[in-house]
């Protein structure tokens, strides 16, 4: 059994984002200011702004798998296969019963249920026309299960429901399982197919939290004074995680080491964030990583561009990083890709990982007039920032019902 403190490293990345289907493309667009939001026809609602991924599902799936499975399944399989290829692992030789698949999801099953209700509406709501695929498509473990089928993984494969904190949770849980010795190799991260359910659009609209803008590319604008809500997006990002000694034994490229994390709950409201609990979450992650706030070089914010949520996260960040952190840069990835829900945390971390190599912090774009209440020191606005050092990245992801996750990764030092 490995030690509970075994060092855990990231050795591969596979992703699809609204502005890129590989880490290289994603990063290139984050540094070039290329957003990935477009208009999409949403059932019952007409054109809405959404972050749409354009990967080719048939790269790693048969047509029948795509037809029978779900969009979340296709996203997961694409990301998993790309991450494995990136990791360089000799997949044929990996014992499949020692592989774990841990996928964060915000929700699952709404898309497929809506589709079936729409389908039977064409048959006078006669339920004998309801698909026999409904149950395998809507079980909460669906995307992880489809991935296990595609890869022949016989180890534990399941999802972690954690609202929009879920992307980080996939990595956190994988690290825990590697340290427990439950698995020797993990595929983990988060996925979302949310743009294919009208319900999430209608729900945010009813909350007055759905972004609008005449220019789709400018619609997602955290910290801007005129921000008016969330751009809903799909996406996925999976990592290969290994214990350091295993990664070193096979000579793997190491992107980063998991330095610390924390997960807590607000216990205060269904939808409103709680900056006190967010602050506690950030501080606890720092403590686990044995780092001080001034040791963090990039803080990637969760901010979704809701008028109140951004201010509250800024309050939490200011409490930790507001003073004495001259080398801490702060950015936001949703300004490019909208809110990828279950994939958000994992994707946003990935977008910043190359900073270890290029010593550049991608900016928060679409900030024409910075909200004074969001004017954090170190906020990188509209243009990339070249910095002297990037040794640590802190990634926040928060979700409804008050779940908070903070993940810290560090430059790998043998």
């Amino acid at each position, binding site marked *: 059994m490995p030690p509970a403190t075994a060092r855990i490293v990231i050795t591969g990345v596979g992703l699809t984002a609204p502005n890129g289907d590989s880490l290289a493309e994603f990063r290139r667009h984050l540094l070039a200011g290329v957003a990935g939001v477009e208009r999409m026809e949403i059932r019952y609602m007409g054109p809405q702004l959404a972050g749409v991924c354009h990967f080719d599902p048939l790269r790693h799936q*048969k*047509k*029948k798998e795509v*037809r*029978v499975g779900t969009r979340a399944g296709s996203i997961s399989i694409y990301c998993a296969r790309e991450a494995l290829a990136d990791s360089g692992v000799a997949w044929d030789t990996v014992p499949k019963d020692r592989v774990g698949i841990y996928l964060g999801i915000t929700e699952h099953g709404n898309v497929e249920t809506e589709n079936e209700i729409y389908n039977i509406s064409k*048959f006078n709501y006669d339920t*004998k*026309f309801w*698909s*026999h*695929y409904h149950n395998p498509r809507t079980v909460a473990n669906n995307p992880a299960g489809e991935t296990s089928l595609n890869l022949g993984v016989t180890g534990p494969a399941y999802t972690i429901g954690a609202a929009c904190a879920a992307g980080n949770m996939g990595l956190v849980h994988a690290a825990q399982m590697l340290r427990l010795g439950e698995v020797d190799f993990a595929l983990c991260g988060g996925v979302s197919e949310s743009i294919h359910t009208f319900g999430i659009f209608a729900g945010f609209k009813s909350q007055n939290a759905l972004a609008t803008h005449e220019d789709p590319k400018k619609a997602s604008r955290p910290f801007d004074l005129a921000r008016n809500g969330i751009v809903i997006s799909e996406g996925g990002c999976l990592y290969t995680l290994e214990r350091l000694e295993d990664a070193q034994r096979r000579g793997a490229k190491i992107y980063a080491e998991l330095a610390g994390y924390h997960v807590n709950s607000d216990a205060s409201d269904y939808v409103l964030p709680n900056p006190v609990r967010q602050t506690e979450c950030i501080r606890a992650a720092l403590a686990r990583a044995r780092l001080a706030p001034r040791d963090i070089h990039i803080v990637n914010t969760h901010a979704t561009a809701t008028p109140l949520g951004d201010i509250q996260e800024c309050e939490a960040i200011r409490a930790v990083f507001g003073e004495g952190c001259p080398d801490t840069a702060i950015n936001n990835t949703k300004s490019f890709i909208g809110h990828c829900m279950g994939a958000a945390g994992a994707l946003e971390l990935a977008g910043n990982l190359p900073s270890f190599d290029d010593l550049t912090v991608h900016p928060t774009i679409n900030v024409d007039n910075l909200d004074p209440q969001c004017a954090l020191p170190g906020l990188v606005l509209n243009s990339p920032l070249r910095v002297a050092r990037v040794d640590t990245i802190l990634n926040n992801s928060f979700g409804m019902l008050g779940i908070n996750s903070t993940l810290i990764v560090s430059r790998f030092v043998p």
Partner: protein
Amino acid sequence: MTKDECRQVVLDIIADIAPDEDLSNVKPDVRLRDQLQLDSMDFLDIVMELRKRHGIEVPEADYLQLASLDSSAEYLTPKFVALGK
């Protein structure tokens, strides 16, 4: 509807539910499962599509009648005729 037309109805459905399969040489007298990658869920698809597209019901007790194109045509043709098709 002739039996040939009935075989084509079933083949058209299979083309949609098993899009990776080459259907150019399907032998009508051989079990579909023995020549194509079809599982039990696929046969439920055939039953569902017959219901949706043609208004034809295949009770569970009769599923075996859909084993091959020939047996499907034997079984389904009278149903199509009864519907005036």
